[in-house]
């Protein structure tokens, strides 16, 4: 279905209109996101930026089909999203997203097996490659609880990338990684996005990372969170990092998000 729909390139891969998200609380429902609309074309990369607790993960979960919007619609390739599915692979923000009863390799091979796309040997092979790419070959046969925080995140990234998804939703995947590993994975991600032409929704707090990875930035703010602005950053590549133009955009975004004052964001 994904392939068939891809040909109808007039339909956006993802489209949200007037999205609002509520959570049940003990008293009344709490609105955390309101009136968010965006469309993402095939192969595009959208980055969500916003203060801690503003609702980025919630939007991602709504796209993934885990949270039902309180208002508005989200559609993937023209079809309203009614639940989760393997066309929208998620890298969660949490460290405990690896299944503790599977070795790292089996964790990475798991979605490949579940989708019945690959045979056992093939799945293991692809998992091994994906783990090598994130520098986890040494612990391929370990269980998740013996890994450091950053290693767990890398394994989750490898698992998501190995599925070669149609749409990839990543929630601060690089937050626990050192500068070098982060840079390597950013490069890998950009390269894979080109190669596999997948659509990426990415949440991050690092504005430079946002500018580098995103073709478009969606800045969120307020309470409940609404879109503050949308920026086109498709022109930046790895080489531009540190350039004056790049830095200017980063500063601009920072100002838009935090209007320069010392302030504590909603919480």
């Amino acid at each position, binding site marked *: 279905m994904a392939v068939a729909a891809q040909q109808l390139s007039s339909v956006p891969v993802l489209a949200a209109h007037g999205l609002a998200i509520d*959570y049940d609380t003990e008293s009344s429902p709490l609105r955390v996101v309101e009136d968010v609309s965006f469309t993402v074309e095939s192969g595009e990369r959208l980055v969500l930026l916003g203060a801690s607790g503003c609702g980025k993960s919630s939007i991602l979960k709504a796209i993934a089909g885990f949270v039902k919007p309180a208002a508005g619609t989200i559609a993937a390739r023209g079809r309203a999203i*009614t*639940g989760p599915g393997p066309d929208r692979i998620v890298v969660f923000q949490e460290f405990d997203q690896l299944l503790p009863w599977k070795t790292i390799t089996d964790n990475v091979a798991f979605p490949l097996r579940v989708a019945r796309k690959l045979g056992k040997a093939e799945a293991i092979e692809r998992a091994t490659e994906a783990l090598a790419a994130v520098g986890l070959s040494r612990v391929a046969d370990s269980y998740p609880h013996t890994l450091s925080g950053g290693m767990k995140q890398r394994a989750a990234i490898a698992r998501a990338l190995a599925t070669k998804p149609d749409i990839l939703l990543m929630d601060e995947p690089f937050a626990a990684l050192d500068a070098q590993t982060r840079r390597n994975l950013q490069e890998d991600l950009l390269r894979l996005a080109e190669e596999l032409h997948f659509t990426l929704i990415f949440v991050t707090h690092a504005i430079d990372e946002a500018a580098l990875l995103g073709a478009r930035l969606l800045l969120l703010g307020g309470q409940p969170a609404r879109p503050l602005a949308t920026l086109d950053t498709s022109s930046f590549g790895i080489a531009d990092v540190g350039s004056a133009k790049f830095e200017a955009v980063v500063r601009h975004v920072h100002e838009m998000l935090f209007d320069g004052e010392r302030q504590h964001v909603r919480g």
Partner: protein
Amino acid sequence: MSEADLTHRAEPRAATVSPAFLAFGRGFRALRRSFLARRLLVLVLLAIAWQLAATYKASPLLFPSFTETLSAFFQSARTEDLLSSAGESMLELIKGYALAISIALVLVSLATTVPFMRDVLQTLTAIFNPLPAIALLPLAMLWFGLGEASLLLVLVHSVVWPFSLAALTGFEQVPETQRLVGRNYGLTGLRYIFYILLPAALPSILSGLRVAWAFAWRTLIASELVFGVSSGTGGLGWFIYRNRNDLLTDRVFAGLATVILIGLVVEFAIFHLIERYTVERWGMQRAAQH
């Protein structure tokens, strides 16, 4: 409800449907949401099934119908000692239950503090858990006599091992980070157990309490029959046994229905509420729809 819906914690709030559907939909949804209504529906369905099965078998001496049981229940409650028997049994049950849970908590606390005690507890559990109450009878007579103490011993035996097992498993499943947090603040020994392990293991402990409660009932009813009861002072088990020997099966079922009623009340008025206001509220256990 579809599969996918199961993963939704946030409930839909807005709906745009035709007003005709709306009323019906609202009623149905209200029913689906109301915990008590759904439980009542289940109970009513069960009662109907019972009535039909009994009518089909037409063997009131072995299997009285729901309505026969109901009238026997009211009659026994009015003219016989059903209610006072139930009260007596409840009292005994609560004593034995409380005693057993306390003993089990002490054992499990010891087992979490002293590694060798863990071996002792696990071995004791493996030894005593499968032993039927009847095996304890001679020993109980020898050491505790024929009165209440022996009955309590048997009750404690039926509760202490399964509950210890559940509590120990619960303690051992407590996430590493939460343990470390407790240790970090200098908690050790009993304070560590009380402030960290117990609340963190509450889902398992509640499940253990439930199983233990049920087994306490089972054992109490069964052992009021076997021993320890002087005639004339027996509880619900004795009520059941007497009527069973007199082939007054409708009263036997009325006695059993009392057990069930008490069980349902305890389940929904105690365990369920505790669950709802603790582990479900804390996000430690998936919430049912209430």
